[in-house]
């Protein structure tokens, strides 16, 4: 394991910022710490770096407990959200700073800096001062500086928070490539679930100082551990149902949940892609009216209103939309192919009940 966080808590005065968090990062892994702001993810990153001390718990880097090792001696690379470049130094000196402190030889420093400039596409910029660089270039200088002395882990705090959307997209792809080339264990903080999904091997999801779920992007998307994750990652329809005779009901919708006792209230969740629609009103069980269409590029999101007034979200491709001849106001029939019981609200649900319920696909296409 490259990084291990064991039972770590952090309190600022009376405020608990991080609450008994456990996770580990494998050697060479690219991992995201994801959560809304104030979720404690940056605090965790700063504790790993040694910029904050945990109130309790232990942190290990490559098997060594680092709680008592100062930030200077941890050999980590840290990239700050606002770059934190040294304004009085040019690009070369910024990157060389850590190497000079570690008393590298002059020639070795020059060689290493040149290597990094090349790797990060910063050739020719070594004499520039930070204020003469674009946002993306500053970001890369900050990463080069952090990587210079070959740290055991690279930690990035909201690395793409301060650049505009277009550059952010480029930087994400670039980070994935860089990580592939260097294979250095990388942990980055983000509040952007799309960014986390796109870039990382695994995601750690935080909310209010608690670790909510760890998993590969696909896992947390398809099998969210609880309501928070379900709502935070992607779009999900979340409904509160009451169980009668093994069926959870809300308005006209029915969800078979065989093992749950009568009278119980719980949350059911399903992704928009699980809502299948047809213009043949007899094809599926429920009827609804398409009230609004959102264009999301290749996909479209539909808002469907049931006779009871309940609104569900569905998602189909542009082609299907055209093929079905849909338009706002059109009446359709629908079914929900797949749904999950979200445990967080229904307290004390045993874990085996976090199953996904599937209906046998009727005719045709999966979406």
């Amino acid at each position: 394991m490259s990084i291990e966080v064991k039972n770590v808590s952090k309190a600022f005065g009376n405020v608990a910022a991080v609450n008994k968090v456990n996770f580990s990062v494998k050697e060479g892994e690219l991992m995201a710490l994801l959560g809304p702001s104030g979720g404690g993810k940056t605090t965790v990153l700063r504790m790993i770096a040694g910029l904050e001390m945990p109130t309790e718990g232990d942190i290990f880097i490559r098997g060594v407990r680092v709680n008592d090792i100062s930030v200077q001696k941890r050999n980590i690379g840290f990239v700050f959200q606002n770059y934190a470049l040294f304004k009085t130094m040019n690009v070369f000196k910024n990157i060389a700073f850590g190497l000079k402190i570690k008393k590298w030889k002059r020639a070795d420093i020059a060689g290493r800096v040149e290597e990094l400039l090349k790797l990060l596409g910063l050739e020719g910029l070594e004499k520039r001062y930070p204020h003469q660089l674009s946002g993306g270039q500053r970001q890369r200088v900050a990463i080069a500086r952090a990587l210079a002395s070959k740290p055991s882990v690279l930690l990035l705090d909201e690395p793409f928070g301060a650049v505009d959307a277009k550059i952010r997209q480029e930087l994400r792809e670039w980070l994935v490539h860089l990580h592939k080339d260097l294979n250095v264990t990388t942990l980055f903080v983000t509040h952007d679930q799309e960014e986390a999904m796109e870039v990382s091997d695994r995601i750690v999801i935080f909310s209010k100082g608690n670790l909510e779920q760890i998993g590969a992007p696909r896992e947390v998307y398809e099998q969210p551990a609880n309501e928070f994750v379900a709502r935070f990652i992607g779009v999900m329809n979340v409904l509160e149902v009451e169980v009668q005779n093994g069926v959870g009901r809300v308005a006209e919708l029915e969800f078979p949940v065989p093992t749950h006792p009568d009278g119980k209230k719980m949350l059911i969740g399903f992704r928009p892609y699980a809502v299948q629609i047809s213009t043949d009103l007899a094809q599926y069980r429920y009827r609804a009216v398409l009230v609004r269409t959102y264009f999301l590029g290749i996909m479209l999101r539909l808002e469907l209103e049931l006779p009871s007034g309940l609104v569900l979200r569905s998602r189909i491709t542009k082609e299907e939309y055209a093929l079905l001849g849909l338009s706002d106001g059109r009446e359709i029939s629908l079914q929900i192919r797949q749904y999950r019981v979200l445990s967080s609200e229904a307290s004390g649900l045993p874990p085996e009940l976090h199953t996904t319920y599937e209906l046998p696909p009727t005719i045709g296409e999966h979406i």
Partner: protein
Amino acid sequence: MADKKFNPLPGFGLTMGYTLFYLSALVLIPIAALFLKTFQLSWHDFWRVVTHPQAIAAYKLTFGASLIAALLNAFFGTLLAWVLVRYEFWGKRFVDALVDFPFALPTAVAGLTISSLFVANGWLGRYLVPMGIQIAYTRVAIIIALTFVGLPFVVRTLQPVLANLEGEIEEAAATLGASRLRTFFSILAPTLFPTVLTGFALAFARAVGEYGSVVFVSTNMPYKTQIAPYLIVVRLDEFDYHAATAIAVVLLIISFLILALINYLEGWASRFHN
């Protein structure tokens, strides 16, 4: 009108006009009068007056003492600003208010106070004089007075710059392995240096022009403890107006050259800014 350039911020003509008028009335016209008065002297007389050994001694004392005072202020002012910005302590607001004290206090009062402290029966003098340390009415007293009047400049110019330093910069240095001391000298000092220079220049200029406090802390002995502004007053008392303005002109030119040099240094030290 068609070729008049559009400017989203109107009012340039008016504000520039006032600025020129204001500067002319307060600065340029008096200085011009000073030069005109001086030019009534022949070059020979001018040279004789301004190179008089007494005048030379006065320039040396004025600029030497001002330089030492400004250097002291640059160092201790930086320290004071650092403490006031970085740390929270009981009475901080009071200490902060004290910094402005030399601005408000009539400098003559400051001068009197300093000499009364260091005379043989003063609060400090009663311990220092028996040890053979004579401060009152010496050049040391002049330096103390000039340091006092220049104190606020470095502190007040540095405070906002220190407050705006990003904490992340120091953290970044720490993650790269830099100790606190190393971070201070490699990262913070170069960042703060241009501002310290500005404060230094202001304190220096203030000290060169100081008169009120020095008159009371110094014996104003020619060749020994007589500063140039005092010499000007002496010449005025002798009704030698031309000599007085001639010395003033020299004072002005030297000050201008030194400030220009400091300005150039500032530009060089902040080359990493826009």
